[in-house]
């Protein structure tokens, strides 16, 4: 077996040193009744060729995004990833290293994390960012919990603009605690009244911008209302390329910014792994969950980096830790950082413009589809459309798939029991979409809706 270096003669010689008859003897602490005498009756080992064949077969059962006009977003976005990124990611010193607890042999990971933290703080407009959470959903939940810790209050308001998975994950996280979540209904038109709900018991309001249905808002009035009531404003960014074009949440007054970082440098991978971004103000840093890389010097006075402020974390604080998180999304953070480094200030802004322009172009073309109306008045690279009162968007998406087009996400996939959302379809356009893709979508929609 190619991954196992020991030969039978190695094993024999090693057992002699140990003074054991056979390997089974080393398992003598296992209750005899539970010991398996031989391998389970399951498939045996295979060579690379056989494994590749089996996986290629499974891969061919899927319609991959590159093989279809593709307009799906809703929390995972398809962007072009520069070729150099994956080559760097595959360097074994990054790929096969552990968490950088031994700083002398981990300066590469640590410096990369320090740069990542800086980039995240910059684009979110915050003072400080951590070294990552699992994904956007868990970052949102952790932000709500942190806001309760900071304010010593227990009520969390979740906007109807928040991705439904983030809502569910946050509700689940609070389910067996003193904290409660009040989730507002889905808000495709941007009409919800958050300001009227904030009171002296509110720990935070969690709002997504651009919203789940695409809308972009100035959050300054909301920030002022939160702060006036002693609550925090948590802003979720599900599409971080948008920050190349819009004011940062920090500039609008956010106290905690969380994001799903998948858009930059990380493939879609059927939804995981993602990358949770988490940023806040300096004054709250000790209430933050997750690892932090910090700058220091070595015994020779040279600049270097270590993991720091670890007393917040589970391996020291145990049940009093700010979170139970240990393993995070290290390699995804590296991918995000490499992509943002390749883009730079110039490329990041350009990428965001391209995305917005793609959506504007798509909106323009969709005017040709009778009965369809775009719901959002403002958007980045994604918007919800209403297909007509009697239309079931799920059936339309299904019919588009039959024509080889991956044409958005029906809102009913998340809210199956909301009839008013049945005709709502969420469409995204990114820099990867061509004119021809859009024309295919439009003509197929016309056909399906006629």
């Amino acid at each position, binding site marked *: 077996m190619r*991954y*196992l*270096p*020991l030969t039978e003669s190695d*094993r024999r010689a*090693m057992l002699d040193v*140990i003074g054991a008859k056979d*390997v089974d003897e080393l398992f003598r602490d*296992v209750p005899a009744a539970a*010991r398996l005498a031989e*391998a389970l009756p*399951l498939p045996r080992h295979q060579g690379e060729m*056989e494994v590749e064949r089996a996986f290629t*077969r499974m891969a061919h*059962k*899927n319609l*991959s995004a590159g093989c279809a006009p593709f307009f799906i977003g809703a*929390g*995972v976005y398809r962007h072009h990833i520069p070729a150099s990124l994956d080559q760097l990611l595959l*360097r*074994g*010193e990054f790929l096969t*290293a552990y968490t950088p607890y*031994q700083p002398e*042999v981990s*300066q*590469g990971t640590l410096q*990369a994390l*320090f740069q990542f933290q800086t980039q995240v703080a910059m684009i979110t407009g915050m003072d400080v*960012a951590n070294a990552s959470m699992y*994904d956007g959903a*868990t970052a949102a939940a952790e932000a709500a919990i942190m806001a309760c810790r900071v304010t010593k209050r227990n009520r969390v308001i979740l906007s109807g603009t928040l991705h439904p*998975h983030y809502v569910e*994950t946050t*509700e*689940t*996280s609070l389910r067996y605690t003193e904290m409660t979540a009040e989730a507002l209904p889905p808000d495709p038109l941007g009409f919800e009244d958050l300001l009227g709900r904030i009171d002296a018991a509110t720990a935070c309001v969690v709002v997504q911008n651009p919203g789940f249905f695409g809308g*972009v808002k100035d959050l300054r009035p909301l920030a002022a209302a939160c702060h006036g009531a002693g609550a925090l404003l948590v802003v979720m960014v599900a599409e971080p390329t948008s*920050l190349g*074009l819009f*004011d940062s949440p920090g500039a609008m007054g956010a106290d905690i910014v969380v994001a799903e970082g998948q858009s930059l440098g990380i493939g879609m*991978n*059927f*939804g995981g*792994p993602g990358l949770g971004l988490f940023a806040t103000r300096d004054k709250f840093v000790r209430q933050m969950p997750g690892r932090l890389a910090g*700058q220091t010097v070595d015994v020779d006075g040279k600049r270097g980096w270590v993991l*720091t402020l670890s007393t917040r*974390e*589970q*391996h020291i604080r*145990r049940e009093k830790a700010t979170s*139970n*998180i240990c*393993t995070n999304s290290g390699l995804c953070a590296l991918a995000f950082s490499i992509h943002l*480094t390749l883009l730079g*200030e*110039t*490329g990041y802004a350009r990428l965001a413009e391209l995305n*917005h322009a793609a959506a504007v172009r798509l909106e323009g073309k969709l005017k040709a589809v009778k009965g369809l109306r775009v719901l959002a008045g403002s958007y980045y690279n994604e918007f919800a459309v209403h297909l007509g009162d009697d239309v079931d968007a799920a059936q339309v998406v299904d019919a588009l798939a039959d024509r080889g087009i*991956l044409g958005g996400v029906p809102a009913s996939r998340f809210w199956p029991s909301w009839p008013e959302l049945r005709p709502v379809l969420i469409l995204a356009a990114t820099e990867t979409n061509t004119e021809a893709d859009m024309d295919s979508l439009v003509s197929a929609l016309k056909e399906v809706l006629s």
Partner: protein
Amino acid sequence: MSGQPTLSGNRGLQIEEKLIFEMDNPGSVAVDLPEPGPIDLDRMGGVARRGRIGLPDLSEPQVVRHFTRLSQKNYGIDSGFYPLGSCTMKHNPRLSEKMARLPGLADLHPLQPQKTVQGALEVIDSLAFWLKELTGLPAIAMSPAAGAHGEWCGLMAIRAAHEDRGEGHRRRMLVPESAHGTNPASAAMCGFTVDPIPAKDNGRVDLDAMKAKLGPDVAGLMLTNPNTCGLFESEIIEIAAAIHGAGGYFYCDGANFNAIVGRVRVADLGIDCMHINLHKTFSTPHGGGGPGAGPTVLSAALAPYAPVPYVVHGPQGLELVEGAREGAKPFGRVKGFHGQFGVFVRALAYIASMGADGLRQASGDAVLNANYLQASLSDALTASFDGPCMHEALFDDRFLKDTGVTTLDFAKALIDEGYHPMTMYFPLVVHGALLMEPTETESRETLDQFIAVVKGLAGRAKAGAAEDFKAAPRLTPRRRLDETLAARAPVLRWKAST
């Protein structure tokens, strides 16, 4: 000559590397993007960005060289022996990477119509099948993102099961003192209070002390097995019977499942749920801290409470259940979408490569390698417990008594010898712990060389070379770093003025 400073500050292959922010060359581009079409300011909600962010501009050659140089300041499994106890640093097959990059698996959106992703659902279903077979438990929650997340998921299922039976008052979770810190932290997040249970002199749970803690408010027990001392809990069946007898559930922390996979099914030990670190047992890369994956197997009693989503076999093929369904009482959702799919592909490719026979051989070799280390080093170091260990060998610092050398110094000296240190000062139940996990992917030659080095260092420590140890490491890009300074005056990001 070797100590003479160079003009550049570099030393051969050790090249000093600035921060990207210090290399900014405005106007440089590393990505050629087309001219954007018209931007519609009316569509931007009045919040179009004004002003710069401050990101540096670099060219592609600079970026590639920068990150390559950073990588060279790291030690990975590809670099050498990484005996980091409890972390399972073993060879990461590149076939798994190749499979995870097949466009038909990588370039898929989680919200595509299900009929267009039957192959992806097959990956999830096949991996779930293997994990259930290998543990003997009938159900699984695939979505947890890492070990600690799986712990929380399992404990949420336990809490939900108690609530559903009208026993929501069961809030006390028994956790051994030697547990990973994630265990009490996860328990606290489910509203449980943590009640520590002591260990016996042989490093195992004190069964009598545990029984004395049982009562009508006990929700369950969290136990790592093999435990954090690298020992199998030999009374585990009695432990399971005791916790079940008291109306509680038995959570197993599966961080060390790699020691027993293919040799023991945890269902046969009386365990109700266990998370599995795919990045340990099934050899997906640790990536400098993640991503991992922590699927959690569940007994029939806990199965109804499994979180969404999950895959079922339906009339039209595989179906992803994302919401309420007859007979199920999911406690909720633990993350976005359907789990760490990219990690699933790698783990399944590893499992397919190893097969049932290979997995059993791997756990046997892992335990053999650890016992070989323990036996070979027992003269030079002080083993904490008698008898065979499982996948890791635990030593304490008695062998360093009166040498002036600490466990930390000893570990740092190993760095200069070309090794990643072992785990230090964990588990806490042993003084000055040195925990070594060789894994099954190390050759006898590698182990013999390591053994010789460790013996040599122990000899030097006893011969009074404490000052040399205190000065180690000398040969790394950076020597010992001032962690006190880092924590007292935190600098957590670069700023233009500094």
